[in-house]
């Protein structure tokens, strides 16, 4: 087992290397760079850009050097924990991301909890009451959440929250609490705003989870061991909890790999529509304006979390389900 973990960790290094090359290449693919984007935007509103100043900035940030050199510079920086510099904010990337990370985590955490709370009971219910009215009804509601585009749902929620409850539009707190340290009043304001993104983002995930749980559970419920257990008189609740439910949870453990990065990235589109101060809009804006170190470093951070997440879920699966073999070749 230890050997397996060690090997898995070693494999992460080339994976991350390839990812970093890909990220850097893709970000550099569009013609031009951040400074040209900036000049275009300024001119679009009538402002003049000082071209000699732009040249100066380009040189300052190494844009006169070949991409390979810039790549090397960026990656070695990352290894030292220096995520680079954001041109748009004119601040180190770390300072910008750091501020938004906490809120993103709060939103994502509540969303995951929400998804679980809704999806688990429904999934179990619809598996044990297959083809009943309850099964159809609840699955239908779950599917609605998946089918309606998130941004549309977000707009509808925004409108009604504002008209009915007077919740301020967009953001995670009322404007007067922005830039203020956390207080009870601010926390209440966060809660007041939080339910909208949580429900919207959670709605999509819920349907998927219901379906997976229902399908896996149905498989298990037809197996011999369960039928035998029931036949021997084990009460239905206990029988369910003790065996088939556990078996049906494999997918859930392997999902953990995706949870880590999604906790820090949040749901980008919803966050933009709702104007949340999370990392999602930051990343998209950085990609649009070719603010390359901000975008690149953040994507790298997410890749790193994904790799770690997959590792954790692999280990957890191996522990949970002894039937999973660590090495295909070892046991023939």
């Amino acid at each position, binding site marked *: 087992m230890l050997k397996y973990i060690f090997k898995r960790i070693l494999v992460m290094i080339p994976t991350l290397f390839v990812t970093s090359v890909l990220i850097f290449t893709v970000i550099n693919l*569009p*013609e*031009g760079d951040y400074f*040209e*984007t900036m000049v*275009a*935007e300024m*001119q*679009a*509103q*009538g*402002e*003049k850009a*000082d*071209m*000699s*100043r732009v*040249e*100066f900035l380009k040189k*300052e940030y190494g844009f006169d050097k070949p991409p390979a050199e810039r790549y090397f510079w960026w990656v070695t920086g990352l290894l030292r924990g220096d995520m680079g510099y954001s041109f*748009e*904010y*004119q*601040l*180190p990337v770390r*300072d*910008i991301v750091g*501020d938004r990370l906490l809120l993103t985590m709060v939103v994502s955490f509540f969303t995951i909890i929400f998804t679980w709370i809704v999806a688990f009971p429904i999934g179990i219910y619809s598996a044990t009451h297959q083809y009943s009215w309850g099964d159809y009804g609840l699955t239908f509601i779950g599917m609605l959440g998946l089918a309606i585009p998130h941004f549309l749902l977000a707009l509808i929620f*925004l*409108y009604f929250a*504002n008209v009915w409850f007077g919740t*301020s*539009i*967009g*953001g995670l707190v009322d*404007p007067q609490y*922005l*830039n203020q340290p956390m207080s009870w009043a601010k926390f209440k304001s966060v809660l007041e705003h939080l339910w909208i993104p949580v429900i919207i983002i959670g709605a999509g995930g819920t349907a998927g989870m219901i379906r997976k749980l229902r399908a896996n559970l149905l498989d298990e419920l037809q197996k011999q061991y369960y039928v035998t257990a029931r036949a021997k008189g084990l009460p239905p609740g206990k029988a369910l909890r003790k065996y088939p439910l556990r078996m049906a949870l494999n997918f859930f453990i392997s999902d953990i790999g995706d949870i880590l990065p999604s906790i820090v990235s949040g749901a980008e589109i919803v966050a*933009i*529509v709702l*104007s949340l*101060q999370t990392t999602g*809009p930051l990343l998209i804006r950085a990609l649009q304006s070719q603010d390359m170190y901000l975008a690149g470093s953040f994507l790298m951070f997410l890749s790193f979390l994904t790799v770690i997440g997959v590792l954790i879920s692999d280990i957890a699966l191996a522990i949970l389900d002894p039937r999973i073999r660590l090495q295909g070749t070892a046991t023939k």
Partner: protein
Amino acid sequence: MRIARRSFLLGTGAALVAPRLGFAGVETLIDSPALAAKVAAGGLPPLSERLPKSPRLIEVAAMGRAPGRHGGTMRMLMGDQRDIRMMTIYGYTRLVVYDDKLELAPDLLESFEVERGRVFTLRLRAGHRWSDGHPFTAEDFRYWWEDVANNKRLSPGGPPQAMLISGQPCRFEILDELTLRYTWAEPNPVFLPAVAGAQPLYIAMPAHYLKQFHQRYAGKEELEQKIKSARVKDWGSLHERFSRQYRPENPDLPTLDPWRNTTSIPAERFTFVRNPYFHRIDENGRQLPYVDEVTLTIGSSALIPAKTAAGDADLQARYLRFEDYTFLKGAAKRMNFEVKLWKRAEGASFALMPNLNAIDPTWRDLNRDVRYRRALSLAINRRDINRVIYFGLAKESGNTALPESPLYDAALAQLNMTPDLAEANRLLDEIGLSKRDGEKIRLFPDGRRLEFTIETAGASTEETDILDLIKQDFIAIGIKIHPRSSQLDVFRRRILAGQTIMSGWTGMDNALVAAEMEPDALAPTSPAQFNWPRWGQYFESGGREGEEPTIQEAKELVELYRSWRHSTTHEERREIWQTMLKINAEQLFTIGVVNATLQPIVIAKALRNVPDNGLYSFEPGAFFGRYMPDTFWFEGK
């Protein structure tokens, strides 16, 4: 809740009246109650000691407005952190400013003199202070000129263009602590307009504050320490980061503007508070600005119309478009605001830009033929466009000066603007495009159809709607167009590379022109001019990049522009402007469609003094700037 606090401030305000010794018509000075506690505690000198000896007197009543009271918070919404520069623009405090007749008047300066167009003597107000209380003197000008503009590290390209005439910098002299002189060998008509611009040329910096970041003044160890803690490369980056005046991101940087930023980046909400040393007062002796605090809340720009409609802004125009008007007007009934419509001041809200530098030789030659451009203009039914898209509220006009400008000429604005299909067809036949195919589309001699794509930056559907109407007009004269919207960067690059045959964009950014303003928009001077980007690039790069203009009229425009840069008198400049406007109108280098379209302005019901009718433009109006937001105030309840 906000209103309650406002009225509290007003309630306690009246008591704070300090006596003042003889000053032009103003007997007493009135300080803002927001500062009263600080003054009483000794944290701030009384108002009489904070103002310059001769503050700038703004006669609010004479402007047709009501003199106001202090207090309140003005809320605005912005789409991006970089938008905090809007406060520098809205505040519109400059050494010299454009007054309501578009003439240059001293603002921060007490007075200025210009001799023979080349010797500029600037006089500061005695006792004028930066927002931290340090005196504003000639030293601040010297610091900028010697230690910033002429410093190799901070300005590797040398002093800015407006400080050079024929490549030669000025001679800078300090006559005394409050008097400065800039002398050029030849006239420099760009200097004062650059200083008065919405995006101004700063020729003074708070030296007492910035010296701590400058290699020449700061102690070596201290500087090292600061470079390290700010995590920048060297002292140059450090100085650059902490000295931004246009985008006031550094809350510690002293300013002369009406409000100063108190929030450091990154932030979602910026609070600007009144500058206790601001140099303007009203006729009652009240120090301006009236409003104590301005907040900018940053959110996604797409949500700003919705947030405005929810009553989240007291003054808002940015990110609102004419298409939001009905929605805002509907919400105004529910919420506490009004929606006014100001006129936008572009030469054309939408203009066709035939690319005279297109790569394809057939199209390029056709675009360069004035008869072709005239035919296009004569084919457009501008009245329909105005009625369909703008409810008939815009003005059908070429891309030229607005009626509010002293250089307006009604004949030029209407030249080639009245639809005349017969004449348009005749012109196209004359060029030799008389053959048509089965679809009635004209054919080039080589058999290609007169069919092309018109590109837009895709900022709004308004542009594509207009182009859809124009499409019908052009089919009537045998030309087929395909409107296509892309993304701003791609759009710009394609045009510069000559891949775009024609584009749709706004006309002159500033059509509120006066003879003293630089006529650079009328001649090929910048690659951002989509009708002749490569000629513009040629001019801007001094001949290193781009192409030299080949057609006579474009060359003439460059010559005229150059002679304006060396002009001495107002008459001379006026004449050059008129000639340039005339050439542009006759040659139709840009084909204007409509101008003076409307800009919705959302104003809280309690906010006073915002004009009902205004002109909304970046240059020279500085958006709200020319209407002095420091004279806006909240009426208490």
